[in-house]
């Protein structure tokens, strides 16, 4: 019966649906169930309705984590994008030197996120790191990068920019390569300056890749756990404790799985919104092509 042609589409998508069901929908439903219960020591104790959501929404530490996440994500996004764009423009031409440079720029991205953050932690550590060797001769021997809220946030942003600029570069380089060369040539023949060509040809045709890169980066930065967990531990104090780190701590350190899942569901909704924006951009890109 199921071998008939009319079931072919179902057979083709069936496996994907099952995988989606097993790895996304079921955990999501369990997560939601946990979020409306009081969970203690991994045991569901009592149904609490939306109490966990209320507690998370009114928690000063979650509000602080939200502010930290916005600060970190926005500053990192801007810097990562600008540097990535700059690198993409610089390395657009295909020659031997640029090939080597692309490989060099990609190194931080190729290093495992965890290892990269641990390396930077050693670099920024005052007692045993390289930063003191650089800062001390400049009369800043007392500066402890990871022990000061502002410099710790700067270090966190540096970690993100150092690693993710290469990703932005790859995305934007692909966009640049897709711009037909004859447009630039024609503009040159017409006497257009480099700045004019950039403004009137490159930027408009890169609009979609730029948005996709930014949204993709933003989703990554909002959800990243490794940087704050490994590099700063959320500190000093709660200066670099992002929403995802807070969620991790609620779940795996404090073992209040109800609140952790409530926060996770809210972060999930934000992510869905960001993905919706991304999908619209992809659709727009499809229409352009």
């Amino acid at each position: 019966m199921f071998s008939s042609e009319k079931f072919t589409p179902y057979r083709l998508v069936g496996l994907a649906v099952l995988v989606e069901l097993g790895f996304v929908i079921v955990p999501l439903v369990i997560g939601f169930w946990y979020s409306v219960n009081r969970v203690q020591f991994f045991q569901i104790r009592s149904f609490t309705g939306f109490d966990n959501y209320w507690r998370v929404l009114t928690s000063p530490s979650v509000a602080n984590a939200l502010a930290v996440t916005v600060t970190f994500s926005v500053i990192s996004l801007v810097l990562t994008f600008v540097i990535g764009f700059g690198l993409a423009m610089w390395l657009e031409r295909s020659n031997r030197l640029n090939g080597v440079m692309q490989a060099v720029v990609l190194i931080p991205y190729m290093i495992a996120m965890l290892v990269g953050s641990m390396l930077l932690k050693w670099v920024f550590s005052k007692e045993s790191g390289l930063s003191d060797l650089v800062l001390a001769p400049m009369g800043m021997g007392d500066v402890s990068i990871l022990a000061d809220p502002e410099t710790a946030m700067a270090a966190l942003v540096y970690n993100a920019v150092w690693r993710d600029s290469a990703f932005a570069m790859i995305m934007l380089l692909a966009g640049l390569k897709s711009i037909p060369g004859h447009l630039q040539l024609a503009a040159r023949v017409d006497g257009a300056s480099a700045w004019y060509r950039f403004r009137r040809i490159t930027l408009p045709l890169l609009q979609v890749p730029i948005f996709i890169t930014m949204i993709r980066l933003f989703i990554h930065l909002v959800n990243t756990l490794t940087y704050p967990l490994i590099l700063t531990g959320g500190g000093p104090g709660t200066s670099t404790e992002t929403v995802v780190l807070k969620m991790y701590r609620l779940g795996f350190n404090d073992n209040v799985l109800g609140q952790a899942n409530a926060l996770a569901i809210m972060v999930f909704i934000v992510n869905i919104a960001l993905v919706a924006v991304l999908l619209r951009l992809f659709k727009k890109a499809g229409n352009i092509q």
Partner: protein
Amino acid sequence: MKKFWSIGGGLLAVSLMASSAAIAQTTLTMWTFLDINAKGGRNAALKQMISDFEAVNPDIKVKVEPQVWSTLAEKFVLGSNAGNAPDIGWVNSENLGFIMNSDAAADLKPLVLDGWSDQQKQDFLLNSSFSAVTDGDAVKAMPLLPSTWVLMYRKDLFDAAGLTPTDVATWDGVTKAAKLLTKDTNGDGQNDVWGIGLGLSQERFSVTPAFLATVDGNGGIFDDSCKATFDNDAGRAAVTMQVDWIDKDKVTPREALAMSSDDAIDQFAAGRYAMMIIANSRYEQIQRTAAGWDGSHLAIAPVPGTNAGKPGPALLVGWWAVQWSKSPNQEAAAKFISYMSGLDGAKLWNVPGEQIPTYRSVAERPEMSDPVRQGLRVTSEILANSGVLMPGKCNWGRTQADFNLATQQVILGQATLEDALRQAEQATNDRQ
């Protein structure tokens, strides 16, 4: 006759096959942070223990599945909920709450303790520890590897400064000594040796002076219903002490705010600190990795007290064995737990395991007189004189991090002392 031999031979073969099937019919699974295939005293001790046990009990095999130490308790309870926990699990003191607040662990009183002779019970040094794991009449865990935190200091620096351990018997004494010991040895305007080390990060944290001083001054941190009670004068004084060390007395580097316990211990081993509160189990490692100073100058003193004449609390912590309540091998699992926590097991944990003896008769063995076990001897005495148990039912696994955060917030001006401590207390209460 031929028929007789044929039948007899057949029966013999069948009985041999049956007996070999009877042997190794039970395989126990055990989750521990130890790895019997790795180097190290404790690993070697466990490997020997399993080998000895299996020789005496040929029908039982023990399979060790090494796990990440920090999640053993959680995984055991989750495994129990899912119906696939190991027969035996190891749990650290800070996470006993998982065991005491779930039905994952079996009652070991009838399975293990009731089988101990009166002589063994009298010889056992940790009888009082059962109060932390007793729920009604049920005993949910057996102590295996006791440990505690002590004040480690560099004797060479103490001698040079004319200090003795009695000078650091109180926290006030520690502050005074730390001021004497903090030095800029190369004249570059920056301190090279700090009086006392701290690791105040919220990740990979450990017990700090503020926590111990609060337990001492407050008589614990919980009431009988596991409600945290340290937002008071004792708690404030303890956090203020740490804040002052960094801000006012300048005997601890500000970098401590970003350091984990491991980072700080590394710095201590590298010769940057003169004193630090450290788990006794790190003694041998610090001696071995000391850089820029002779590790033989490492010495141990009791935890300083709040008031003169009374040592601070030596928190009796360590590793416990628990048995899965739904294990199909209850009897065999209990047998191995009894072996690990019994006299034969304790001898191996002591040597080659280099752990604190859990039986008087083990502590009095000639091996303990060896100079290399100086640290173990001193720690045993400290535990005997001032050992304090934390309640097993209460979740205090992250309260140290709450104290760290409170200290950080006050130093950074992110909260007043009162607010920071109130938040720390609330955070601990939220986990109960």
